[in-house]
């Protein structure tokens, strides 16, 4: 344990980024841990146990820093790590009246039940269809919009448009769905003007067949504008000299976009694609809950809502927890795999090893 911490903690030291004082310097030269000599040379503190002296010294030096991280670590411990342990209910026949310690253990029975449940697979299918659809019809929009904005030469116009398109990201899903309801709903603006002009009213907000389009347009309205911020940052990092050189070599507008702009965006695109793929199983949870009454469960059931309705609403806690745990583990596997693939293609990915 001690050596493990030592080794991990000293990794950043090797590149010299964190050499804040002289005391830590000798450590980088002795990979086996600090010797008595190092410690004494550094601070003159008598080191009683050979291996712990350095640690103790560093703790004394950094204790206020460690103390500062404590509230966040405690909050995460309680509200992120404790629930991870709480997943044991997936292996039980949990009843809230008996509690986790006394509920009977059933092994993997819940998992076999979930995996044999057609409703579960229906939710999986819906989730994946929505993810795939949004990958095609949502993902490229911020990229295109960012390139379009970047091509504007008037900085004030650009800033003004940016300010407008970022805005809906800060609205809640309730608000976004409400706005759509007012515009496209049965009594909304669109149908109001259709009827006024003698046309048939259109059924948009409650039609399960077109729900996929509705979901995606809501997502685009809310988040496509915000999505450009990362691409704009990447675009501004492209050296203008590259464009200049390409132009001198006779590359036109489209050639420059293809050979300079898009390669400049490549690593950001890959990074966001990984994040999206890792999140494949998470789609518009609040959107679904808000519109479930309108379009029905058939079209709006995704994995998260499946877990919520079977667990919290119907009280089948263990069953829902098993479904949730499957989702969490598959998501973890997905993001690790996506990242691995990114490394193979020479991109840095979400984390680097």
């Amino acid at each position: 344990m001690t050596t493990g911490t030592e080794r991990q903690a000293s990794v950043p030291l090797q590149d010299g980024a964190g050499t804040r004082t002289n005391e830590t310097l000798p450590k980088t030269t002795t990979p086996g841990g600090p010797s008595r000599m190092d410690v004494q040379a550094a601070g003159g503190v008598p080191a009683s146990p050979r291996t712990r002296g350095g640690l103790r010294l560093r703790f004394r030096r950094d204790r206020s820093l460690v103390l500062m991280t404590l509230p966040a670590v405690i909050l995460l411990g309680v509200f992120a790590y404790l629930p991870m342990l709480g997943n044991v209910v997936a292996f039980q026949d949990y009843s809230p009246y008996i509690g986790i310690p006394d509920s009977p253990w059933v092994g993997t029975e819940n998992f076999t039940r979930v995996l044999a449940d057609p409703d579960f697979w229906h939710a999986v299918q819906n989730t994946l269809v929505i993810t795939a659809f949004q990958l095609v019809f949502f993902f490229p929009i911020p990229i295109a919009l960012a390139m379009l904005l970047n091509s504007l030469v008037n900085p004030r116009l650009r800033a003004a448009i940016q300010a407008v398109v970022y805005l809906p990201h800060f609205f809640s899903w309730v608000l976004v769905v409400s706005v759509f309801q007012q515009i496209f709903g049965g009594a909304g603006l669109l149908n109001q003007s259709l009827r006024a002009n003698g046309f048939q009213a259109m059924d948009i907000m409650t039609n399960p067949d077109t729900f996929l389009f509705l979901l995606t347009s809501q997502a685009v309205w809310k988040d496509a504008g915000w999505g450009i911020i990362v691409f704009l940052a990447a675009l501004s990092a492209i050296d203008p000299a590259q464009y200049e050189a390409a132009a001198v070599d006779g590359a036109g507008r489209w050639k420059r976009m293809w050979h300079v702009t898009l390669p400049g965006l490549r690593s950001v695109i890959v990074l966001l694609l990984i994040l999206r793929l890792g999140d494949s199983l998470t789609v518009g949870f609040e959107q679904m809950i808000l519109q479930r009454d309108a379009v029905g469960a058939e079209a709006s059931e995704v994995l998260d809502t499946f877990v919520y309705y079977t667990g919290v609403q119907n009280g089948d806690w263990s069953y829902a927890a098993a479904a949730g745990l499957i989702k969490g583990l598959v998501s973890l596997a997905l993001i690790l795999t996506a990242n691995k693939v990114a490394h193979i293609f020479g991109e840095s990915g979400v984390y680097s090893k």
Partner: protein
Amino acid sequence: MSTITSKASASTSTARPPRLKPERPVWDEEPGTVAKAGKFVVLAVVVLAVLGPLYTIVLTSISSQATITQAGGLVLVPGEISFAAYQQILSGGVVTRAVLVSVGVTVAGTALSMVVSILCAYGLSRPGSFAHTPILFILLITMFFSAGIIPSYLLVSGLGLINTYWALVLPSCISVFNIIILRGFFMGIDRGILDSARIDGASEWRTLTQIVLPMSKAVTAVIALFYGVGYWNAFFNAVLYINDSAMNPLQVVLRSYVLQGVSVPGQVDVGTGAAAGPALQMAVIVLAMVPILMVYPLVQKHFTKGVMIGAVKG
């Protein structure tokens, strides 16, 4: 960015036809009329798609009953203006209480989140400090694996937080992503400044409050906005953890009035000069928007800075 403009303006003064826009670099040819028109149309559609719905909703909320009836629903052309809808929903009752709950949770929650996050980000801003890497790992793991709805619900109910405002604050109190952005910014602060503070005898706490924080106003404002918006917009946590309708935040009330068709109190007595149903609904929507519209312009200009640093250093 600044290099582009400076270069461009330098070249205008020397050998550029005056007709061109000054910001366009020399090597970039002026786009054709069709391309320009296309760009204009696309951007106009985008801006309209965002602002159009907001315009008609705000306008309807401040229109009188007669104007709304005449328009047949949502109002596009300003008619008679009336603030009856706001008077009605803000003079006590469900919506007023929901606004108070939301404001309270947002203010208290954001304050708590900011204190915890800034402390944690500063505590982790020095690679090589004691237990730095293990603590960072504890944070990062939660970005890759989350426990799920069921265990989280069981925990909150096990802690006895159901039907308390704590349930709206504590589970969503820290966002690791925000901490990483803050940490990235703190790490970018010149080490010389911090070292000289230390030599002058300043403790870490003092360095943080008197040197680091004043230097990080922009990023702190952005993160505070992120947290504040998160609390203000929180909907599902309230659905999950709050059963007492008197404790509902505004988003839940908005849902029941606008999406679930529950009638807004006062909506029925149309004949008595009270505000019309649509106006009341719109007024609730606008109330849910207003705080964001107020804070957003102040913070918006710092976005690129804050998010960019997070992206680079994170």
